[in-house]
């Protein structure tokens, strides 16, 4: 056990899985970083350095790609059908629009369309989220789009420990998994065991226990919820925080149990509001826990606008602890007294 960053946790998961299984193959733009260049061949390790150092250890299991996402994401699907466990990197999830077909019509549907005969063990690692002034085409969340699609699993770790355990589980999983890495979290540190371990897909975690309100928070929003919870506790409002960790499959039971107990729900989702995780989870809870709900479910999301560039706007764009706390206070103030 030692302190590692979210980025190091991911790098370590990749290294340990490549070590364990020579059919685990990693590729993406600049994943080696420098192929064909006159200087250091592994000068980069992906744009943020997540795969840095892997080339030295596993020169036959990591490759650079041309900027051809359809081709190499599709290649991951084809490789998964023919003996590899590829881990392809879609640098920013914002780039899904140039390769979505290979994800949602090919990889995701093989098993069903082929009458159960296919097995497509592939992972697409991708970076999401606002917060670094990367503007409209490099700051989106978009996981609701992937969650919409049957055949895909969607994983979204909120901390370094989960990042490692969920990535190892994703690589060992036999279905196509989209693994969402939050770019702001890369630098965040936490305790991460040195040895390989897995966190099962489809199991939520109760990050904080509380009796008054359930907050379901996605990815980086877990930390916003935690900050809000701390300030709410000062006011005597005890919040329970559920981190789904995987969005598909969604651990509905854990969410429902919590809401049955608290009677109140706030979903915190940094994605666009329409057809989002916030609406998905709110609707599921409304449909399945109606008789336990004491107040209207609340959604805290980004507004229905693209992410803005300017820091002063972007800081308003992303849900923050204050907005979360306000939503909690509103729900507590509303409806049946608790």
């Amino acid at each position, binding site marked *: 056990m030692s302190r590692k960053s979210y980025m190091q946790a991911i790098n370590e998961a990749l290294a340990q899985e490549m070590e364990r299984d020579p059919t685990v193959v990693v590729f993406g733009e600049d994943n080696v970083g420098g192929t064909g260049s006159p200087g250091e061949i592994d000068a980069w390790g992906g744009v943020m350095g997540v795969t840095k150092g892997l080339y030295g250890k596993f020169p036959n299991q990591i490759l650079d790609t041309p900027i051809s996402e359809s081709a190499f994401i*599709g290649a991951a699907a084809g490789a998964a059908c023919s003996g590899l466990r590829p881990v392809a990197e879609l640098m920013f999830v914002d780039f899904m629009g140039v390769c979505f077909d290979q994800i949602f019509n090919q990889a995701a549907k093989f098993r069903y*369309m082929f009458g159960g005969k296919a097995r497509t063990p592939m992972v697409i690692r991708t970076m999401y989220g606002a917060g670094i002034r990367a503007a409209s085409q490099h700051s989106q969340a978009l996981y609701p789009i992937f969650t919409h699609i049957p055949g895909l699993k969607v994983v979204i770790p909120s901390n370094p420990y989960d990042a490692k355990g969920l990535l190892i589980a994703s690589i060992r999983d036999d279905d196509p998994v989209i693994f969402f890495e939050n770019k702001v979290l890369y630098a965040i540190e936490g305790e991460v065991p040195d040895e390989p371990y897995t966190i099962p897909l489809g199991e939520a975690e109760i990050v904080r226990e509380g009796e008054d309100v359930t907050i379901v928070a996605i990815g980086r929003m877990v930390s916003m919820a935690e900050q809000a919870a701390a300030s709410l506790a000062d006011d005597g409002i005890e919040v329970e925080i559920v981190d789904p960790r995987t969005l598909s499959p969604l651990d509905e039971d854990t969410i429902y149990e919590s809401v049955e107990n608290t009677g109140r729900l706030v979903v915190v989702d940094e994605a666009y509001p329409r057809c989002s995780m916030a609406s998905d989870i709110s609707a599921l809870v409304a449909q399945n826990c109606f008789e336990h709900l004491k107040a209207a479910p609340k959604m805290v999301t980004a507004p229905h606008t693209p992410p803005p560039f300017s820091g002063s706007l972007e800081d308003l764009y992303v849900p923050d602890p204050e907005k979360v706390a306000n939503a909690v206070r509103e729900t507590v103030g509303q409806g049946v007294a608790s």
Partner: protein
Amino acid sequence: MTESEVAGARERHEELDKGALLDAYRTMRTIRDFEERLHTEFATGEIPGFVHLYAGEEAIAAGFMAHLDGDDYVASTHRGHGHSIAKGCDVKGMMFEIYGKDAGICRGKGGSMHIADLDKGMLGANGIVGGGPPLVCGVGLSAKVRGTDQVAVSFTGDGGANQGTVFESMNLASAWDLPVIFVIENNGYAEATAQAFSSKGIDIAKRADGFSMPGVVVDGHDFFAVHEAAGEAIRRARQGGGPSLIECKVNRYYGHFEGDAQTYRGENEVENVRKEKDCLMLFRQRVTSAGLLDEAELDKIDEEVKNLIDEAVREAKEAPEPSPENLTTDVYVSY
């Protein structure tokens, strides 16, 4: 080996010996009969969905697959019956599938446009034009990483050749130096639109230059021409020589899909091709005139294939529908 498997079976032949010629003929004849029978059956209204027939293009599938082993892979198109049969998919299973029956090769869930059998190296027909080429890059990578001599072949139409995925895949295969062959089946049309318009009627094979790979044009009606070009490219790929592009100029005998009135076509266009360039006719002429096979041997295959297809259709019509539970199975391995 059931009769159904025999018809679809092919072995890899290093040379065109007698067995190879018989196999090739059987493959082409099976495809032709399968497709012509679908044409007549579709007209009765009993066959659901979109059905795209490969009739007229059989020499391409047969010519390529003759060089492939069971663990080589193929990615096909919406017009996938021919590739599937030639790659060894079960013919009855395919027929059941097209009728949407539970015994179908995809349990009735895929249909004509998604026929696949990974165990046979058939990565699937594809409802998305240009969907297949990225997949074969992955197979090529897999072969390379695992150190096998497998190859993978993707088929794309002349219209599909303009889909971005196809270009990207050619370049990726080139950059990664993969054992992959890109086949363009240029039948002159994408639906109703002519290749003369959609890519100015150029030789699509020319595009290979832009990816540092060999590109050749062959007559897609001529089994022997296809077989030779395919053999060269596949041998090169197996030996680590990287990808190739092969454009086969050919003609489709029926509409884009069944139900197409085809008023965009020239007068007697198909009739003339049938008369002058039909792949089965050319093959028969060549092998008999060269004394490689005799008419009786070929007639026997015709007869066997006819019986197989009759039986397949009869059984498919009677076969049971998928049961309701199947609606939601097989989405995930685990969920």
